[in-house]
């Protein structure tokens, strides 16, 4: 099957269409690894198809392919889908994987335009990208009026890790977040990443802050286990 035939089939592709009818696109994804001209052609066609009236299923399929071969050139077309509930997930799937500041900016920029589940998804994608530049905006969402958004921001900060994310989480715990197990869990996770990055003092400080009697037993034990790991790392 030629690429032309596959893209022709994509125009009518929908749930129930045999995947063999678009297999030429899958073949091109693989073949273009060693063929820059084919890759550029393929990506251009995929991007163009997103602005046509192909089915939801077809757009999902295209996003899955752009997740593998997409470059910053695909970001404008994908970012147009992020705010649409039906397309947001797989558009994010591609944007999570496209390297460079363009995809990160598209996700960060979408935060103000979306709400509810879609916003949670965008936050999750920033976390999955470990987008350190997004730490301030994610930190701001820790106090969001929607508890699900706040929880998502905490999980994203935990995925990003590092000193800035840790400090944001500690501040949130100190600012009414005591007893919030998600905040505590992701802070413990940050301490683990700091420890594995040999920032032992910073990790130990986090563990000490979570080892007091006011914490649930599960958390105290985790913090004490972490402190022992810090001592072991220092020895």
């Amino acid at each position: 099957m030629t690429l032309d035939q596959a893209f022709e089939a994509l125009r009518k592709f929908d749930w129930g269409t045999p995947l063999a009818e678009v297999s030429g696109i899958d073949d091109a994804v693989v073949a273009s690894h060693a063929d820059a001209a084919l890759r550029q052609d393929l990506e251009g066609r995929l991007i163009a198809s997103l602005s046509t009236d192909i089915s939801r299923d077809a757009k999902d399929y295209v996003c899955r392919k752009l997740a593998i071969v997409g470059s910053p050139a695909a970001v404008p077309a994908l970012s147009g889908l992020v705010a649409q509930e039906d397309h947001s997930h797989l558009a994010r799937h591609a944007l999570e994987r496209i390297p460079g500041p363009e995809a990160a900016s598209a996700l960060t920029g979408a935060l103000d335009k979306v709400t509810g589940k879609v916003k949670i998804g965008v936050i999750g994608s920033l976390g999955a990208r470990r987008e350190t530049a997004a730490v301030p905006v994610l930190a701001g969402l820790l106090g969001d009026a929607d508890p699900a958004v706040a929880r998502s921001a905490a999980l994203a900060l935990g995925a990003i890790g590092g000193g800035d994310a840790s400090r944001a989480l500690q501040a949130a715990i100190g600012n009414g977040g005591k007893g919030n197990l998600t905040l505590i869990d992701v802070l413990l996770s940050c301490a683990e990443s700091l420890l594995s990055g040999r920032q032992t003092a910073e990790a130990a400080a986090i563990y000490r802050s979570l080892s007091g009697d006011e914490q649930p037993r599960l958390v105290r034990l985790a913090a004490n286990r972490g402190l022992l790991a810090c001592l072991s790392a220092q020895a």
Partner: protein
Amino acid sequence: MTEHESSAAARQKTSPSRRKFLKTASAALAVPYIIPSSALGNAERPAPSDRIVMGGIGIGNMGRGDQGAFLDRKDVQYIAMCDVREANREQSKGQIDARYHNKDCQVYSDFRELLARPDIDAVHIATPDHWHAIMVIEACRNGKDVYCQKPETLTLREGPLMIAAGRRYGRVVSGGSQRVLEDYRQYVEPAWAGEYGTIKSINVEVGPLPQLCNLPGEEMSEKIDWDMWLGPAAWGPYNSKRCSGSFSIDGSSWRSFSDYSGGGMTDWGAHHFGGATFICDVRDLQPKEVVYHDTPERKYLEYHYPNGLTIYHNRPNTGNMHIEGTPGEKLPPKPVPQYQGEGGIYGDFIHCVKTREKPFRDIERAVNTCVLAHLGNIAYQLKRSLKWDAAAQQFVDDTEANRLVDRARREPWQL
């Protein structure tokens, strides 16, 4: 969720222990109450306070077997179950209540409610694979020990996060392949006895690869929370084959489809690759590269390990578990690891819940097995050889392969 979690935390801090609860509850009864000997415990049945209190999530084909195994144990009190299918909830509750001659089993359609219960010590999870990581991690956050059916992971990234969550909270997290120990004894025992000498290679025959599901929508033929069944996977219309828990991997069950499973590579691969790594004693290692071969006869793989071992996948003209040793060499024997406790892999898990030891199928070893299957799926998909940096958990110099290490989760689900 903040409010929900605050209350969960408060419960953890303030709720009485199970022993105190039972004591208080008994004292509060205003009528004469005869405590059955079974409640106090006897030689055959531990007292309630000494039983492991369990719940189950995903009670379909595999979950029913797991539930039955735990339910049969005298040292387990099974009190809750969760499933997105109404029929599974009804059937499971019926079995549990019949076992205890009461109506006490609580049923849930949202696993988070079950996991938030402070009176549950341990859970078993037997959902489709796309749910495993989220549920295992959430269970650990809630202080539960976990028995998770194989294949434990759907993506390469999930494994380290599941291990970290288990280790963070000191949880016992066991994978669910009973075959690793039980099916390959004829190879394991001579291998660990040193009779093969240094094992140079072993072949695993398993498949097929997963495929994208593009089944058409159809009228819903069962009472199922479809959004919850899909969970973190991409949206797709209801189709009974898409969500069938059948063991087939030919396109008529979720095990066939890449959004929910790694296909035969992970489904039976969890057993066969697990057995191969056990035979060769590399359960604690991950391969450093996978070499892709496309021959007229068939496509096949070589996994190269840092210690020099090669695991083949579908090597032409070679049978499953075919071992290439070192003729004339005899190595010092090593004791073969076994389950602890009684009752196979389930007994091993319960024993470890009580003793806090690592189970035979500790999550880290289960994840290492899944890594083989995932690396293989990616190499076959991209049709090329790949180098794997196990420490960094990423491919070396291969941007596209690294894009396949994980996938975005459908909102609102997140790791």
